[in-house]
Structures are given as structure tokens and as C-alpha cells.
């Protein structure tokens, strides 16, 4: 068998997703595709990314994935919750580099614009052995795509929309067989002066939001050189800056301002052997956040190396190490931190239809050592016919999260004695793939997870201090299905997803555990689209069930369902130049809703996009 490491063309993210248009990815499939047997992994394909190109990763995940995104308003903080865990329980990678802030231990998805990335993969469940720190509820894998031999390509895209939205992006790419470069620049301004019903005032009058303006600019540069047939260098650089007026919660008249500026850079060197590849990776992430006048800066420097090799026909291995150096200069403290980790993975293909993977990681930081973190999984294709496949996936894994710099050092209140948070996750999933005129792919996954030593900041008088206090038991059911068919000249696609997520707080009232705050038990989304001679129509909806705003028998917020609709035309051309057009209506039924209590969200809005492909 040929090792999936060849330089130019390896297919696919997930071997079973034949119905989804497969794309060429460069170099080799990441660990996610090679050693994540038995785990739930989903890809957001390039069509979805294109539809969300003028929006944020937070919006996309809320509307198109089983992830619950806690949105603090329009363009405001958006934090992911996988399987009932918190934002800090989600590892986020960009081109293999962990990009969560080391001081906060999480990322704000609203300042990760979709146009900065080419691929998004979501992995569910604890995978500390495979992905390391913070992969407790799941992980998000973002990346650039490198093309070779495509010559010059250019794109100019302009979106205008309601509530003062102007989104401009320009990209230019050039690639020969040896060299590839892609540059993109984007800028987004949103006044967010939407109207909402102010519940805090007598008579609940309709008012305009006047403190939620957002401006975001970014530059992404991707480079790749094929130094020889046996070696390649890739580099990526991402500068992103967001200036935001922080939308106050209803009833408050705060006028906070926040500026976030991040620089992320990664350089990879690959050396390809006959049945092996050696990778040397170095990277830098610098985050600078100014909240009102307080400045918080962190720098992370990464150095990693791993070796991927095949032994015989049926075994694949990976072994590597990573060192992370962190420096934090926060408004109340300055500290450094180091992390060292060693990881090994093995995949064993016992037959065409049955394969296993074993993953292991050792992790050390100045506070503690996480000595032995295993993960195991299997994929068994028990039905493999010409037009149908049934696949059983099962896995068991552990996850952990090192206390953040703020958890340990914030002054006053930081707690240097904190233990890492830890989790164990088991899941079993059934995948059903049907090919043909009416094709579908469906998956049903049951998971069970326990998170312990969960860190919560609690007030001790006027000072808040973190403690390893919470213990949570999660279980749930995730269904995702996609179907496609042809009706005359119309191409139809239907996507449906439903998630049941139970996350019981065993701490507050152990005898009668309640669902964690802001963790809906029920969540669903659906999408119906049709294409006819370059015209595209789509209707989509997402549903978020009731959720409590605090522990115990706290207030429960109503469920909401939002509808979006869109119209696209992709056949407008002038010579070789294409002008795809799209028009979208968000919150079609003008639903008055809040994701988090008293955080106003916009009503119906319109977005018109014109793109020029050169």
C-alpha cells in the first residue's frame, strides 16, 4: 500500500465521506484523519465556507454544526461548547498550531473570520492523546490549502448588508510546480446598529443598539516551496486585528472598548522518505488584547518535530515531541511557562474493513506532569456493498487541560495549586453511506463523558479565585445526515443534524444534579438547497433548546429557531472572468431572540455579495 504521504495529491479528509466532493490536500493527511479511528469527525466543506466567507467561524459553527456557540451579541464574544463542555475545553489549531490564548485558555470565534481559512474540521470528544492540551470536549482544526501549478488566480469580494455591514476581501495567488503563494486581505466593518426590544425599560420600547460597532482587518500569507522531490517548506502568516465596542447587556450602560490583535506564524519543513515523512515545525502566536485601558499580552513559541512511518502493509506510526514556551505580560502579572510533550500514535489495519488506532501522550509543565494519556479507537466496516456501506466506530479517550496563566497567576486570586482538569470520553457511532441517484450519508453517535477538576472562578469576598471544584457527567446523542438527489435539471441537497446533550452538574446538588448553565439539551439544524443552471436557492434553519442561565433551578431561557434563506447565481461571466452573486436574508422571520440572557441579537438582515474571480 502506498503511504498517504505523497507530495501533491492525497484525497480526502475522512475516508468515508465519498458523497462530499473530495478535495486535493497537500502533503499528507493530518493526524486527525490517520489516527482518529472511532472518533466523530466532521468537515465543513468548501461550499459552506464560501457561503460564510463574510461571516465568522462562530456564526458558521452555530448554524452548521452540532457545536453550541455562546454568543454575547452581534460580533461579540462567541465561545464554543462541544458536548456540554466549556469554551476552554476546546482545542483550536491553525495549520497544526494551537492558537488558544494561554492566559484565557480559549479563543473568541467571532474574531476568527472564515475568509482567513480554507478548511475547517471538527473533532468531538476527549482526544488529549492525539491533540494534547484542552481537547476535552473536542477540537477545531483550521488550515490553509496549498495549490501548485495553477498559475495566477485572483479574487475580489464585496459584501454589503444591513446594520452598516461592509466586508471587503481581496486575494491573489500564484503557483508553479515548485512554488506557491497566496495572499489575502480582508476588512469588515459592521455598525451593528440593529433594533431590539429593550426589556430593561418600562414599556420595553424598541431601541437601536448604539455600542456594538466592530471593525476587523486581517492579512493571511501562505507560502510553499518544493525544495526537491523529497523536501518541502511551508509557511503561513496571519495578522488579525479587531476593534470592538462591547455591546452591553440590556439594563447596563457600559461603554467598554476592546481591541484584539493577533499574529500567528508557522513554518513547516517536510522531508519525505520512501515510507516515511519527517516534519519539523516551528511557530509563533502573539496575542495582544486591550480592554478599555488595560493591556494583556501573551507570546507563545512552539518547536515540534515528528516522524511518520509505515511498517509493513498494515501498520502506521507517528512519534514526536513538542516544546512550548509561553510569556505572558498581563495587566496584573508577568509570568513565563514551558510545556513539553511527547506523543506516539499507531494505526493497525487488520483487514480491509477493520482498523484500530492507539494514541499516547506524555505532557509536563512546571506545575504538574500528566504522565500517561491514552486513547484508543476502531473503525469496522461491517457491510461493504457496491452501493451501501455500514461502519461502526468506537473509541475511548482521555483529555486534560492545564490551568491557564490567569488561573495560576492572576493577581489577586490566582491559584498556583490548581490541578489540570481531566476528562474521559467513550463513544460509539454508526455510519451509513448510500451511493446512487439518491445518495446519503448518515451518522448516529452516542457518547458518554466525565469531566473532573473543572476549574471555576468563585468569589472569596471581593476577590475571585479559581478552584478545581466542578465535576460533570455528560452523555448525548448526535445525528447528522446529508442526502443528495437529482430531479430533472435540479440538484437537491438536504442536511439535517440533531444533538441531544446532557451535562449534569454533580457539584452543586449531587443528589439531584441539574443540567449545566447555558447548555441546551436539544439543538438542531437543517439545510435544503437546490441548484439549477447556475441558480442556487437555499433555506436553512437552526434550533437551540431551552437553557438555564445558572446552576441549581435558575431561570431557563426559551428555545429559539432562526431561519436563513439565500439566492445565488454563479454563471455571470465576462470573458474568463466570473462574477458570482449572492443575496442572503438572515433571521428571515425577524425573530427576537437572545442566545445568552439579555444579550440582544439582530433581527432580519440582508447581505448582498459580489465576487470577481480573475
Amino acid at each position, binding site marked *: 500500500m502506498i503511504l498517504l504521504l505523497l507530495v501533491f495529491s492525497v484525497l480526502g479528509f475522512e475516508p468515508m465521506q465519498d458523497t462530499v466532493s473530495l478535495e486535493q490536500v497537500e502533503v499528507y493527511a493530518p493526524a486527525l484523519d490517520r489516527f482518529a479511528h472511532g472518533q466523530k469527525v466532521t468537515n465543513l466543506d468548501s461550499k459552506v465556507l464560501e457561503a460564510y466567507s463574510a461571516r465568522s467561524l462562530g456564526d458558521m459553527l452555530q448554524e452548521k454544526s452540532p457545536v453550541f456557540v455562546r454568543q454575547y451579541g452581534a460580533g461579540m464574544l462567541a465561545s464554543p461548547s462541544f458536548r456540554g463542555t466549556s469554551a476552554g475545553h476546546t482545542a483550536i489549531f491553525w495549520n497544526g498550531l494551537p492558537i488558544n490564548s494561554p492566559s484565557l485558555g480559549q479563543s473568541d470565534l467571532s474574531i476568527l473570520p472564515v475568509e482567513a481559512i480554507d478548511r475547517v474540521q471538527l473533532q468531538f470528544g476527549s482526544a488529549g492523546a492525539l491533540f494534547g492540551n484542552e481537547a476535552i470536549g473536542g477540537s477545531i482544526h483550521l488550515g490553509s490549502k496549498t495549490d501548485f501549478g495553477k498559475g495566477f488566480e485572483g479574487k475580489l469580494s464585496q459584501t454589503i448588508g444591513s446594520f452598516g455591514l461592509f466586508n471587503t476581501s481581496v486575494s491573489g495567488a500564484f503557483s508553479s510546480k515548485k512554488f506557491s503563494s497566496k495572499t489575502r486581505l480582508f476588512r469588515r466593518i459592521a455598525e451593528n446598529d440593529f433594533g431590539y426590544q429593550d426589556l430593561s425599560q418600562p414599556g420595553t420600547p424598541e431601541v437601536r443598539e448604539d455600542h456594538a460597532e466592530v471593525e476587523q482587518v486581517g492579512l493571511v500569507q501562505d507560502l510553499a516551496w518544493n525544495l526537491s522531490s523529497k523536501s518541502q517548506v511551508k509557511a503561513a502568516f496571519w495578522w488579525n486585528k479587531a476593534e470592538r465596542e462591547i455591546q452591553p447587556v440590556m439594563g*447596563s450602560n457600559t461603554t467598554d472598548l476592546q481591541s484584539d490583535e493577533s499574529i500567528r506564524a508557522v513554518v513547516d519543513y517536510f522531508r519525505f522518505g520512501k515510507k516515511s515523512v519527517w516534519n519539523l515545525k516551528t511557530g509563533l502566536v502573539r496575542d495582544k488584547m486591550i480592554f478599555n485601558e488595560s493591556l494583556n499580552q501573551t507570546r507563545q513559541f512552539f518547536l515540534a518535530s515528528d516522524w511518520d512511518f509505515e511498517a509493513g502493509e498494515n501498520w502506521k506510526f507517528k512519534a514526536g515531541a513538542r516544546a512550548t514556551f509561553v510569556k505572558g505580560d498581563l495587566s496584573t502579572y508577568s509570568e513565563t511557562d514551558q510545556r513539553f510533550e511527547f506523543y506516539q500514535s499507531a494505526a493497525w489495519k487488520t483487514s480491509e474493513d477493520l482498523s484500530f488506532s492507539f494514541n499516547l501522550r506524555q505532557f509536563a509543565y512546571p506545575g504538574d506532569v500528566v504522565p500517561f494519556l491514552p486513547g484508543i479507537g476502531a473503525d469496522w466496516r461491517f457491510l461493504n456493498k457496491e452501493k451501501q456501506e455500514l461502519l461502526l466506530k468506537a473509541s475511548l479517550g482521555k483529555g486534560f487541560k492545564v490551568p491557564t496563566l490567569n488561573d495560576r497567576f492572576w493577581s489577586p486570586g490566582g491559584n498556583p495549586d490548581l490541578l489540570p482538569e481531566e476528562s474521559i470520553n467513550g463513544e460509539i457511532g454508526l455510519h451509513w453511506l448510500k451511493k446512487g441517484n439518491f445518495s446519503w450519508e448518515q451518522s448516529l453517535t452516542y457518547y458518554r463523558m466525565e469531566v473532573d477538576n473543572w476549574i471555576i472562578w468563585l468569589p472569596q469576598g*471581593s476577590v475571585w479565585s479559581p478552584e478545581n471544584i466542578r465535576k460533570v457527567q455528560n452523555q448525548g446523542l448526535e445525528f447528522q445526515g446529508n442526502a443528495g438527489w437529482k430531479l430533472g435539471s435540479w440538484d437537491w441537497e438536504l442536511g439535517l443534524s440533531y444533538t441531544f446533550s446532557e451535562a449534569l452538574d454533580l457539584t452543586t446538588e449531587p443528589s439531584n444534579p441539574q443540567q449545566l448553565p447555558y447548555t441546551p439539551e436539544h439543538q438542531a439544524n437543517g439545510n435544503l438547497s437546490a441548484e439549477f443552471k447556475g441558480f442556487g436557492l437555499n433555506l436553512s434553519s437552526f434550533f437551540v433548546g431551552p437553557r438555564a442561565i445558572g446552576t441549581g433551578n435558575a431561570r431557563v431561557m426559551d428555545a429559539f429557531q432562526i431561519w436563513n434563506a439565500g439566492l445565488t447565481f454563479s454563471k455571470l461571466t465576462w470573458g474568463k472572468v466570473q462574477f458570482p452573486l449572492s443575496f442572503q436574508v438572515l433571521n428571515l422571520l425577524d425573530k427576537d431572540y437572545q442566545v445568552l440572557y439579555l444579550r440582544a441579537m439582530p433581527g432580519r438582515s440582508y447581505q448582498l455579495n459580489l465576487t470577481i474571480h480573475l
Partner: protein
Amino acid sequence: MKNLFKNQLWAIVLLVFAFSCNDNGGDEPLGKYDSGVLIMNEGNFGTNDGEVYHYDPATGTLTHDIFELENSRPFAGLLEDMVLEQDRLYLVANTGKVEIVNPGDFKSIGAVINDLDQPRSLATASSKLFISDYGPYNASYATPDSYIAVVSGLDGGTVKKKIEVSNKPEDLFANGKFVWVAGSEEGKLEIIDADTETVTKTIDVEGKPVQFFQLGSEVWVYSVDPDKVSFLSLNLASQSVKEIKSFDVANATGRIAIGEDNKLYLVTSSGWPDYQDAVAVVSIADNTVDTDWTTGSGFYGIGYDQTKQEIYLTNSAGFQGNGLVTVFKKDGTEVKEMEVGRGPSGFVFR
């Protein structure tokens, strides 16, 4: 004769007035919330889920979120204080508003929603509202522009004047046309003439004065220091401090309940990192102190039910969700525990 008639007339007028008052009082049906206990839940910072719960000790019934229940909209603020004056209940939100409700049915009467920053408490005098307000934070989170906001009329409206006072004014006490201000940060008592709306006198005091209270016929100010608490009795006529009683009670938080027999129940907290909370009992009459009447963690507010002679102690439960109220007898035995709203911080016993 003339004088006698005049006197008689006055007597008649008074009599009629007295009867009419009496009649009115007797005839007016008692509102749902005119008896029982109003529990003030401050709410969580950034969530603005402050609310009032009602507890009926006779039936044990606890009613949630009565502001929202009666007004079909959430309170939407951090509830800092509840003041019952002039047949109105003033709900002071430190997120920048005062809601005014009828205390019997909790229906909204009015509000002060603009021009406030961080209101703390309220008093009425000369048919005006006086609202203590920290003022806005500056860049270093200090509040150098604290004020007392003045609103004409008792049912809310716009702020007509801001009277500059020392930093972080807390409780207010009205005596005739004079409004006393507990200036907590700089240790001052400031006296405002409600008619001229100016500060007419300032008295420097020890510690941080936070709360006025009445004990018998005396008016006192509760003032806290890191290692002691002081009670200052006031001479309202001469506008001066009559007497100071200090006790060795460390780490008082400023929350106080006025018990029987000149006993005062004070919440104390060592704060971070030891974090030990307690209730201290001070007897002003015989100068005794019990610094650990009860101990624990998470203590936040305290109240005293004069009719049932019970102490109500709240636990914030870390503001993660609903808090707790524990009811004690005077001897410290626990009578009841109930889950209430977020950040329970005080009570009005009706």
C-alpha cells in the same frame, strides 16, 4: 370663644382626618406582597438577573421573580437596594436605574432610567428622590465623581441635579428636610438640605460609614474598619455625632441586621485567600461581642424578622446560579433553608 371654636374646629378636622386615615387603612385590601418577606437577589455581574422573591413564612410559599411576574418584563439589572418609603418600593439597580413599584402588587409605578451611573441607595425628602450614586469609574476603576442625584416627585422621572459628595456614597437617611449621606470611601457623613439641594454640613467619622439604622428612638450609623466596627449615634437636631461605640470585630463586610434587645448581627469575611465567613453578634446595650455566632463560607446578606425573631442569612453560592437563604432562631438553631435567586443580599420584612 373664637379661640375655643378654632381649637374645636382643629379637633374636628384632626378627628375626621384620623378616622379617614383609619378608614382608608382598614378598607384598603392588603396586597399580595404587603405581608411576608421580600428577598432581594442582587443578580450576577454581566447577566443582570437581579430579582425579588417573595416568601410567606405562614404558608412556606416562595414566589420567584415577582417583578417579572407582575410586570411581564425582567428586572434586567443588578439589584443593589430595596427602599420602602412613601408607600412606594424603590428598587435600586447599580447598573444604572431605579424602578418604582407599588409594594402591595409590585406593579410598576415609574422609574429613573437615564443619567444614573452606579446607584446604591435612595431616600425621599421634600417630595423628591435622593439617589446615592458612585458615579462612573475612571481609567483606574476609582470613582472620583460620586454624587447624589435629585429627582422631583416620588414616582421617578429625570435627574434634575447631581450633588457632588465624597467618594462612594452608600446609605441615605432622611430626617425632615435633611438627607444624611454615608460617604463610605472617605469616612464622611454629609448632610444635604433637600430644599436647596446643597450639602450644608460634613462630618468626618472613623472607618467607612455604610448604613443608617434606628434602635429605639436613636439613629445610628454603622461604620467598618479592617479590624473593628463602630456605631455612631447621631444628634439629628444639632447634626452631630453623639456617641461612638467600637467593637473588635475584624473584616466586617458592611451587611447588618438589627435584632431585638439592642443586638446587631454583622456579616464578616476574612476574604481571599483564607476565606472564612462568620456572623458576629454585637450587643450595643451591654457591650458584648460574639464574633462567631455562626461560621461558614459564601455568606452574603443578612436580615432579621422582628415579628418571628428569626435571622435570615444568605449564601451567594459563588454567584454560579441560585443562592440560598437559611433561617435561624436566635439561639442559632436552623429553622429552614431555601433556594432563592442569584446573589441574595437583603430583605424587607413586611
